[in-house]
């Protein structure tokens, strides 16, 4: 079996990085960055998601089919979010009543 076993050091490093990022995102939340607060918080969350998925969930050692399926799932989520928000966020522009 071509099972890939990562070292405890790798997992430990990722774990520490995740804890540091949690600290950073919490601290930054108390600083007034205006509209960038959301951007920074989501950027950190996406980095944490990638670390968990690639290392802890072994996506980086997975088959190409599994990788494709994961990407496909994210693509469908992007469609759900983009199309709905494209509607909701532009209703004011064309003066449609009732948001």
């Amino acid at each position, binding site marked *: *079996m*071509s*099972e890939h*076993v*990562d070292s*405890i050091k790798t*997992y*430990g490093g990722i*774990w520490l990085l*995740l*804890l540091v990022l*949690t*600290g950073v*995102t*919490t601290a930054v*939340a*108390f*600083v*007034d*960055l205006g509209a960038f*607060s*959301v951007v920074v*918080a*989501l950027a*950190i*969350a996406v980095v*944490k*998601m990638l670390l*968990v*998925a690639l*290392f*802890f*969930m072994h996506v980086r050692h*997975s*088959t190409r*089919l*599994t990788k494709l*399926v*994961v990407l*496909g*799932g*994210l693509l*469908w*989520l992007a469609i*759900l*979010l983009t199309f*709905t*928000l494209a509607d*909701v*966020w532009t209703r004011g522009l064309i003066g449609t009543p009732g*948001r």
Partner: protein
Amino acid sequence: MANQAHAHAETLALREQFDTAEQQKDASTLGMWIFLITEIMFFGGMFLMYTVYRDTYFPVFALASSSLNAVIGAINTAVLLCSSFTMVLAVRAAQLGQRNAIIIFLILTLILGIAFLGVKAYEWNEKFQEHHVPGPTFHLEGTGEQGQAQLFFSLYFAMTGLHALHMVVGCGMLIWLLVESRKGRFTAEYMTPVDIGGLYWHFVDIIWIFLFPLLYLIDRHLGK
């Protein structure tokens, strides 16, 4: 091929319908990911609903969000990340066929999972005492728009509640994995349930990684 399959007794590591153990493992992993994607879409709908309502009732949602306890939220995030770390070590121990290590790390993961739920219960109890639970006694200080504030807390309870439900299911799964590992069912050749269980546990962790900033943090700087 057919003769071979009949010659050997069917084992957990290789059932009759698969050619190789690797193929069987890949099929299980893929199946779990398909399930997790349905979960992404399920939670995605809730995140979307939250985004739309936060946009529509902005000042009140920011105020309500700031009333949550960010420090407790951060501590609970750390607890969950630690549980993911112990879970990945349990999977690693399973890959190496170290039975005792699997059991120890599964127990640690279970303890951390229960700790997360305990902190969650404490937080929810606080909401009851502060009258921040949607219903006749609801009251959020500092706004006249109690209906909009109740909408925030309805979403808060729905999303954290659904996440907690996934944690409860995860804890049940860990207990089952513990029972099976004690029987010595998992070896370096066959540890698929531990691996697949790990995928589920980390997925629930990822959901919280997004819930925490969106519910607790992004409007923190405005609400004071």
